[in-house]
């Protein structure tokens, strides 16, 4: 069947390119339509007084990602969240922890969730997240104890940035998927290289070529999904690329074009072989290009996996 599909490779190439572009950009287009919502509110005590420095944690019930914000001096907080359903936890020193099992955030409107905390011990027994310089029972809480301002550290420097944390969370989430997909991609890639020995020689069968082509196609699809999660992972402004990750990125400039050229050359070679011809012309480069591509991919993987 594959033999028939690839018989006229000229007509297949545009389709392959369109499919690759779809695989690469479809998730991106989908994500662009979802938008960003927000959850805001005010945390108060039983008497209606504002509770500053309360930690509000929203955990996505769909993706499992968490975001935190701390209430300001007016007791208000704001979390910018992707639309979805969230479990929201309110924690503050000296108050019972309150957990709201479900709060819906929509992309087009700001969800308001006010909370009233009761005085008491924290219900979960975990250490209380307390902003720096605000611990009543700290070993150095005497009147002479130095403060962060004594060290020349301004309140702005200790201020958390929920937006930057959300960016880092998203980046890590996408790069984890990139890493897993990259690992999975190595399996069909290695098998593709191994089956090439039976696919390109003089006495090869069409079955061997079909198997090699199918594995190559699978490798390509997985590869472009892997690449998507690296390309679309958010950049952190002001970060200079240093260390082994630099080599990892340089290798992408070799295996990236290689993963585009290899299947195109492979289809040409496949077509020539099926016509009973010896592989000739530019199609002869299929094997060497594939080897260089696989080598660069392997080097990229090793550069971030093993310390040299």
């Amino acid at each position, binding site marked *: 069947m594959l033999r028939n599909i690839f018989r006229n490779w000229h007509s297949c190439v545009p389709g392959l390119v369109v499919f690759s572009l779809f695989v690469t950009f479809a998730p991106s287009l989908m994500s662009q339509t979802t938008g960003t919502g927000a959850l805001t509110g005010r945390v108060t005590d039983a008497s209606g007084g504002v509770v500053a420095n309360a930690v509000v944690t929203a955990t996505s019930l769909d993706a499992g990602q968490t975001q935190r914000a701390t209430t300001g001096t007016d007791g208000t907080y704001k979390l910018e969240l992707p639309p979805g359903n969230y479990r929201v936890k309110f924690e503050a020193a000296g108050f019972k922890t309150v957990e709201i099992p479900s709060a819906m955030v929509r992309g087009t409107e700001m969800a308001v969730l006010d909370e009233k905390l009761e005085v008491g011990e924290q219900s979960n027994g975990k250490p209380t*997240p307390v902003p720096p310089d605000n611990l009543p029972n700290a*070993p150095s809480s005497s009147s*002479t104890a*130095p403060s962060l301002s*004594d060290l020349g550290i301004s309140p702005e420097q200790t201020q958390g940035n929920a937006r930057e*944390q959300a960016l880092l969370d998203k980046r890590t989430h996408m790069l984890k998927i990139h890493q897993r997909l990259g*690992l999975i991609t190595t399996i069909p890639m290695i098998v593709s290289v191994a089956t090439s020995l039976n696919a390109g020689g003089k006495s090869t069968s069409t079955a061997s070529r079909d198997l090699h082509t199918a594995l190559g196609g699978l490798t390509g699809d997985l590869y472009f999904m892997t690449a998507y999660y690296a390309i679309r992972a958010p950049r*952190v402004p002001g970060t200079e690329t240093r260390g082994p990750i630099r080599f990892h990125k340089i290798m992408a400039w070799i295996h990236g074009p290689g993963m585009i050229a290899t299947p195109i050359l492979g289809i040409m070679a496949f077509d020539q072989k099926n016509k009973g011809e010896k592989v000739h012309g530019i199609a002869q480069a299929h094997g060497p290009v594939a080897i260089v591509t696989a080598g660069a991919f392997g080097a990229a993987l090793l550069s971030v996996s093993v*310390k040299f």
Partner: protein
Amino acid sequence: MNRKILIAFLFVAIPTFGADSQWVLQQSTLTYHVSHPLHQTDGVSHAAKGKGVCHAGQCDFLIAVPVKSFDSGDSNRDLHMLQVTRGAEFPVVTVRTRLPESAAASATINADLEIQFAGQTAQYKQVPFKLETQGGETHITGTIPATLSDFKMDPPSLLTMPVKNEIPVRVDMIWRQQ
């Protein structure tokens, strides 16, 4: 005569019992160590600031270091570290301890540390440090036996293998008394 003795006594007594003295952190190297089956990684910071204030024989110390200042030699790993430690939300790590003023003369001290990191507070009891005093400067070295679980952090993983829970932090500081 008695008045002269009284004045002389006050000159001797004030520095001994009454006056506050301070310690300032001159230089520091803080190094965290992460173990992974395929990697052994160290992240280093020289950006810590510290101060100690002594009063009535007790010294309160505060050391603060920006989470972002740790450099492991790989920008990608540092960004992952920043994410795992919630360094954007809680940008500064603080260490507080109280020591007797006389500890400066010892060769070793055991300090109770309170560390605020990643929005959590953990206490470490009797952490041993070595002291070497030379020319008004005191060189302190030791290792804080920190773990990821102390700060409610999930161990990050590489190639689906998580790092070890232990992240010991090596401390190398030079303090000067003022």
